[in-house]
């Protein structure tokens, strides 16, 4: 039953864009049919995922004529947990697109966008359920390529094409590593089918397999310093696509690492330590880069790097728990990481959809050109605020719950008898720093975009988003509040997934509920909501008929919007603390003379890895190749005959040396 539901859902999703290709470009039947198909497919899929939480894993096999291939699907609690965000965000994104990227407004690109959107969502459901290396790689490639076509939806813009090519290069480099990874794995196990959890003992191949997985999957997940494709791609894609890419597709990389590490019977301690350190680096540097951004969507993209870092910290704690035989660390760390996977998919999609509504209404992504949108877009502002509180990890929303679990995992390492494990505790202040920086960044974003007074003419004419865009955002915020107020609802699913990962210990559920009681969080959340509503109601009643006045400008009677504190000035103080790593470029700003002329000032923070390291390296390599080609390709026949003769000579020598 589960497998039929799942297959029907996947077929519906994969084909959802096809009917639209056959309708006229000017009519909106195609987009409606596709929306209905995606929503129906997602509902079926959610049903399948929920049904497979309690039960034993569902397995589906079918023959496949490809040599060494086989269709082998397995839906276990771990896969089901990753399926949920795919369906949820996929469906909400489609509904959102009805208003945001409607066929009427975008006749040229709407059809192909929907085709690849459906393919991407469907392929991701196959990625997390495939239990066979070849099938996994095929699904992975379909996902990666649909991602490319979605990012380049607006291919007429140069910036978009550039982001698309960088993404394509990055994702194929990752796939190359995955080819090697599955070949090695197949070498070790004798077949391409995935081994059972905790069953694999490959003392010699384990290290290369883990390193390849870290590189291949890390490139997809966007772990620093492999995040190069991420900021550009997320900024260039349409917002609901960014939501899907950032909220869900990055998690496929995390899924890969989680699934792969589950195979091994013995996990060396350095795996956990590596992930922990990479997580801390991604978290701190990712959020620091986010603070430095002026582009709303690039900023959100860097926050994905930060959140992937938090997930990696949780995974690192869980791996250390496996290495040292500490089930409590494993349970808390992995449950926190997996819950953060779900949470991040919810609030990051919400924020990207909110950013899309802002871009749709104002036509700019530049934070310093916005301001005061709460007046014209009150509902979008409230929804965005919810997402901002959630992503800052603040109670009573969902982001806090997952970070809390990871913190508890870290703190429980203090009880261990090994000093190496106790050192894990030092990840806690790093996580606190990440949280505080994220809070600062979202104060800046929400304040500069929605509060104060409009900073440009584009903002003054902004309009509230239509219902088709507000509803998906509302649904996502509802899910955030639900998890924040009732985390106990997800504990069974989480403990099932943890048990599935660590090779089936049944005591995970009680362990988790005992060491991280969810009831207290619910109670605090409800009390907090009550107090806040009561307080605001009191102020509203008391403030009725209050006098209005201009904001106190220290005696300056005619304040102008340009005198407001900008997002850049808000971030300046924090950035000065991170100057050593961010290396921002500053232009202008020097005021000269007694009666200075008009001056301008601009700051720009290029990406440390892509813009400062990789692109110069590639440019150098290209220059070297050009030079060597000019030397070798001289255009006269005698040189080419010389090359042939030389090559033959070298080959003959080699063959006699090796063969003889």
């Amino acid at each position: 039953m589960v497998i039929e539901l799942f297959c029907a859902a996947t077929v519906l999703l994969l084909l959802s864009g096809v009917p639209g290709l056959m309708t006229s470009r000017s009519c909106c039947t195609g987009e409606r049919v596709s929306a209905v198909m995606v929503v129906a497919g997602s509902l079926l899929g959610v049903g399948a995922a929920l049904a497979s939480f309690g039960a034993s894993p569902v397995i589906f096999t079918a023959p496949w004529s490809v040599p060494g291939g086989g269709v082998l699907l397995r839906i276990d609690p771990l896969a089901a947990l990753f399926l949920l965000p795919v369906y949820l965000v996929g469906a909400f994104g489609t509904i959102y697109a009805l208003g945001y990227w409607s066929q009427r407004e975008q006749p040229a690109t709407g059809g192909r966008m929907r085709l690849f959107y459906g393919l991407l969502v469907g392929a991701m459901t196959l990625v997390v359920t495939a239990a066979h290396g070849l099938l996994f790689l095929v699904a992975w490639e379909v996902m990666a390529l649909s991602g490319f076509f979605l990012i380049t939806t607006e291919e007429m813009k140069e910036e978009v094409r550039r982001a698309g090519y960088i993404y394509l290069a990055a994702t194929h480099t990752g796939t190359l590593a995955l080819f090697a990874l599955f070949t090695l794995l197949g070498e070790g196990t004798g077949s391409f089918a995935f081994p059972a959890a905790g069953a694999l003992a490959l003392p010699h191949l384990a290290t290369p397999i883990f390193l390849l997985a870290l590189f291949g999957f890390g490139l997809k997940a966007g772990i620093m310093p492999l995040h190069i494709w991420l900021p550009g791609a997320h900024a260039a894609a349409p917002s609901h696509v960014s939501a899907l890419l950032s909220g869900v597709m990055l998690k496929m990389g995390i899924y890969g690492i989680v699934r792969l590490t589950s195979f091994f019977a013995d996990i060396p301690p350095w795996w956990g330590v590596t992930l922990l350190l990479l997580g801390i680096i991604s978290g701190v540097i990712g959020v620091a880069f986010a603070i430095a951004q002026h582009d709303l969507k690039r900023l959100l993209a860097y926050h994905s790097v930060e959140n992937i870092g938090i997930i990696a910290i949780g995974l690192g704690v869980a791996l250390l728990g496996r290495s040292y035989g500490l089930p409590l660390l494993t349970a808390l760390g992995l449950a926190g990481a997996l819950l953060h996977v779900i949470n991040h998919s919810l609030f990051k999609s919400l924020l990207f959809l909110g950013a899309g509504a802002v871009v749709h209404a104002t036509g700019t992504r530049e934070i310093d050109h916005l301001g005061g949108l709460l007046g014209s877009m009150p509902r979008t502002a409230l929804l965005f605020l919810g997402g901002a509180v959630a992503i800052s990890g603040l109670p009573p929303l969902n982001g806090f719950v997952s970070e809390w679990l990871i913190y508890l995992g870290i703190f429980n390492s203090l009880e261990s008898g090994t000093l190496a494990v106790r050192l894990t505790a030092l990840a806690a202040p790093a996580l606190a720093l990440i949280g505080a920086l994220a809070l600062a960044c979202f104060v800046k974003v929400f304040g500069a975009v929605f509060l104060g007074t409009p900073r440009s003419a584009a903002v003054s004419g902004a309009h509230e988003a239509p219902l088709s865009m507000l509803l998906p955002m509302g649904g996502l915020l509802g899910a955030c509040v639900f998890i924040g107020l009732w985390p106990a609802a997800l504990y069974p699913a989480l403990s099932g997934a943890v048990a599935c990962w660590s090779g089936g210990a049944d005591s995970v559920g009680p362990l988790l509920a005992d060491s991280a009681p969810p009831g207290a969080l619910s109670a605090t959340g409800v009390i907090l909501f009550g107090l806040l509503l009561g307080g605001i109601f009191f102020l509203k009643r008391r403030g009725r008929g209050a006098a209005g006045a201009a904001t106190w400008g220290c005696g300056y009677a005619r304040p102008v919007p340009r005198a407001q504190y900008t997002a850049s000035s808000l971030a300046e103080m924090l950035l000065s603390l991170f100057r050593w790593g961010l290396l921002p470029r500053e232009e202008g700003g020097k005021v000269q003379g007694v009666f200075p002329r008009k001056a301008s000032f601009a700051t720009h923070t290029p990406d440390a890895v892509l813009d400062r390291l990789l692109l110069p390296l590639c440019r150098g390599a290209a220059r070297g190749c050009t030079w060597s080609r000019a030397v070798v390709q001289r255009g006269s026949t005698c040189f080419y005959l010389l090359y042939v003769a030389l090559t033959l000579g070298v080959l003959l020598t080699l063959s006699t040396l090796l063969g003889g």
Partner: protein
Amino acid sequence: MIGRSLLHLLLLLLLSPLLPGVIGKTKAFFGGRVGPPVLQPYYDLWKLFRKGFVFSDTTTWVFRAGPVVGLAVPVLAALLIPFGALAAPAPFTGDLILFIYLFGLARFFTAAAALDTGSSFEGMGAAREVTFSCLAEPTILLSFIVLARLSGELSLQGMLGPSLAQQWGRGGASLGLVLVCLFVVLLAENSRIPFDDPNTHLELTMVHEVMVLDHSGPALGMILYGAAMKMFVLGAVLVRLALPWETGFLLTDALLFVAGMLLLAVVIGVVESTMARLRLVRIPQVLIGTTMMAAFAVVLVLK
């Protein structure tokens, strides 16, 4: 549990405005003045809650949410910590993280409310507040790691519970460092000299006060009350750490705690009277130095 919660809340709600009063009196003593009466903050609150509002025309409901969150958070946080030997009413495993993040929530909304006015001064205040907190938060976490490691508990009640007196014997050096670090954080988080001067005249140099410039009437009262309660709650952690004794009788325990809080207020007053305000660029250096001290404390107990 309800009785204990009520006692906790009564102590918090009734005594918290006393702290700024005592600090003011101490500073007046050092300045050779008579100063306002110790109960002056109560009179101020009473006056403010009866006044009307003036709202800036640019502000929205976010502006009103700031004071509300600032008032609700310390009340909730107070239920998680022991007041001296009086046990916390609602402890649970992992509440130490909730304790820290609740204050984060208050910071988020206070700063957002400041930005809602569209004034550059309030923006400056918001930027400074969130920046300094980024530097203070790792210190609190490191201090809690020390307490958790020594006590083997993961709730504030367990960490600051009856076994605290023995822990001073086992890890006295670390706890001493933690005490100093938390005191510095207390000064920074409650905008006291040397980090911030609540009485300064120039908006350009303020941190916390400039964020709440535009609030008036009951909303301003809520902010002042919330700030006093925040100092009370953070101070209670410090006082418990410094005076870990229990007498076994409710009344004497309560009196010991109140005496400790008053002593803390006098100490803050002495610090404020004898130190100058730090230059703004020096504040991050002091906070990072404090973090390093807390890291030393952790290293001492981790081995």
